């Protein structure tokens, strides 16, 4: 762990990313305490510009809602959707990839055709279709994002399992009479973990972008405040109140950037041999 942290720290960008993410996480956790009122409630006259009134540092939106409160509550939704949809995508992708890589042959062929199918169809359009047909709610948003983002996991895990499958320690486990399931779970997958962790951190970033795009199009959960929704709602008043679109966008960029930087740092720290060569 110490060695891991030492290597992670070498990447300055990754440390900055970690700091930004910690701040966003803090906002998400603090939201209900700092802004106990619903972010949907009207607090002042509409279109109050930022820095013009005490207590409302970022002003109000077209319906007189507190922008800062929306930003804090939006952080909750972004992080929640990002994390949970990634976990669900891993739960779909890891078993498919592991089974395909471990058993090979027909199972591999069928599972990989299935994966390829999902990888070929335009993922954003599929997410739109899913949410348009099943009424948008947080659970469906998460599910839709997971459904379009698992294929890279399956492919990665399959590749890792294939390369580990015939190593000595796996053969030793087979000889000692362990079941296939035990071998996959206890011997193979733990060794395939580092690249999965790196991919997962990048997937959280992509999921947050995807969630904001869906909310922007009006396909988010209508009951939760999210950054994408804030931008979508402010789109029609771009000329008169540009800051209403600008501010939540900055929040998205910072969060996604932080996660991407962390992903690169994890890659450097977990795969010392594959480190980006700094010659």
């Amino acid at each position, binding site marked *: 762990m110490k060695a891991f942290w030492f290597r992670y720290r070498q990447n300055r960008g990754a440390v900055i990313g970690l700091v930004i993410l910690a701040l966003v996480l803090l906002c998400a956790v603090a939201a209900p305490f700092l802004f106990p009122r619903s972010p949907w409630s009207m607090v002042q006259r509409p279109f109050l510009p930022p820095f013009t009134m005490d207590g409302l540092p970022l002003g109000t939106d077209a319906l007189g809602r507190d922008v800062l409160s929306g930003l804090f509550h939006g952080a909750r939704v972004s992080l929640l959707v990002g994390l949970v949809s990634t976990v669900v995508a891993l739960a779909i992708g890891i078993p498919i990839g592991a089974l395909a890589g471990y058993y090979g042959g027909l199972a591999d062929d069928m599972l990989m055709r299935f994966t390829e*199918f999902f*990888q*070929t*169809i*335009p*993922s*954003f*359009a*599929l997410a*739109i*279709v*899913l949410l*348009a*047909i*099943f*009424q948008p709610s947080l659970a469906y948003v998460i599910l839709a994002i997971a459904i379009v983002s698992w294929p890279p996991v399956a492919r990665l895990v399959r590749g890792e399992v294939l390369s580990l499958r015939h190593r000595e320690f796996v053969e030793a486990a087979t000889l000692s009479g362990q079941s296939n399931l035990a071998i996959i779970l206890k011997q193979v997958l733990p060794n395939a973990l580092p690249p999965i962790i790196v991919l997962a951190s990048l997937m959280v*970033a992509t999921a947050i*972008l995807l969630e*904001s*795009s869906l909310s*922007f*199009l*009006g*396909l988010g959960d209508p009951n939760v405040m999210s950054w*994408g929704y804030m*931008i*979508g709602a402010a*789109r029609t008043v*771009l*000329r008169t109140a*540009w800051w209403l*679109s*600008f501010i939540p*966008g900055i929040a*998205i*960029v910072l969060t*996604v*950037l932080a996660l*991407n*930087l962390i992903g690169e740092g994890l890659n450097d720290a977990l795969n010392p041999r594959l480190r980006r*060569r*700094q*010659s």
Partner: protein
Amino acid sequence: MLGFIAARLVKAVFILLAILVLNFVLIHAAPGDPAAVMAGEAGAADEKFLQDLRERFGLDQPFAMQLWTYMRGAVQLDLGYSYRQQMPVAELIWDRLPATLLLTATAFVISIVLGVTAGVLAAQAQGTWWDTLISAVALIFYATPLFWVALMASLLFSVVLGWLPGFGYQTIGANYTGLDRVLDVGKHLILPASTLGLFFTAIYMRMTRASMLEVSRLDFVKTARAKGLRNSVIQRRHVLRNALLPVITLAGLQAGQIVGGAVLTETVFAWPGIGRLMFEAISQRDYNVILGVFFISAAMVLLFNLVTDILYGIVDPRIRIAT
């Protein structure tokens, strides 16, 4: 080579058929009566209308029979009827398709040209502040939501500076012809196409840079150097040519994302393509249109993948032999 193309073609057809099955299943998995789903949540959907729909689409028949009817129609490009717009879906899509093709193709060219150029520059200047700058800009673009860039670009270049039109396909009421019309559409195209291309520019830049650095470490580059070739020749003829292979693969994989991104860009810039059509259909819950656009965009992606596969086969003979 012909066998290679045929194999890819067969695969593409299978994927398209699978998407049709998926569409069909989705209509039936939607909560509520499939007839009501097809009619859209049109208030006009009274019982008699729904009954007509049920008969017309054989919704009272067994599931397999329904699937067959649906597939047969779709193969003949009958993508259903939009009761909202009072028009066949296929017709709606054909009307809008050229605008989307123009937008996505332009965005694609912009992103490839800019991305590869920036990637090559960054790789050649590896370790300098120039490389750091290009890489940092790419990292930021990569983290920026497409729809937000589009909004900000239209704010800056259209509202504040007034340089470029911020919405639409051409100047309304101007009725330009000939070259004037081309220039007018071109002017309207700049903002949507460059914002759509931006995200992908970042991806191609990172890929090209990494791939160039990877290839320049290989032995054949050392050989070329030992032969006394000039550096510019080595870079162009040996390094770049090989470094572009993974970029082509990536471009093929990204095609679907560009089509998806078109929904967002067309929405922001009121660009009259199938992406905008889909956005309008979402707010109207016009399912036939949504599914139709989904099907056609998947077909576009498959076609594009087919082209990149063939390109790849031409550029790298090893691939052809492997399949």
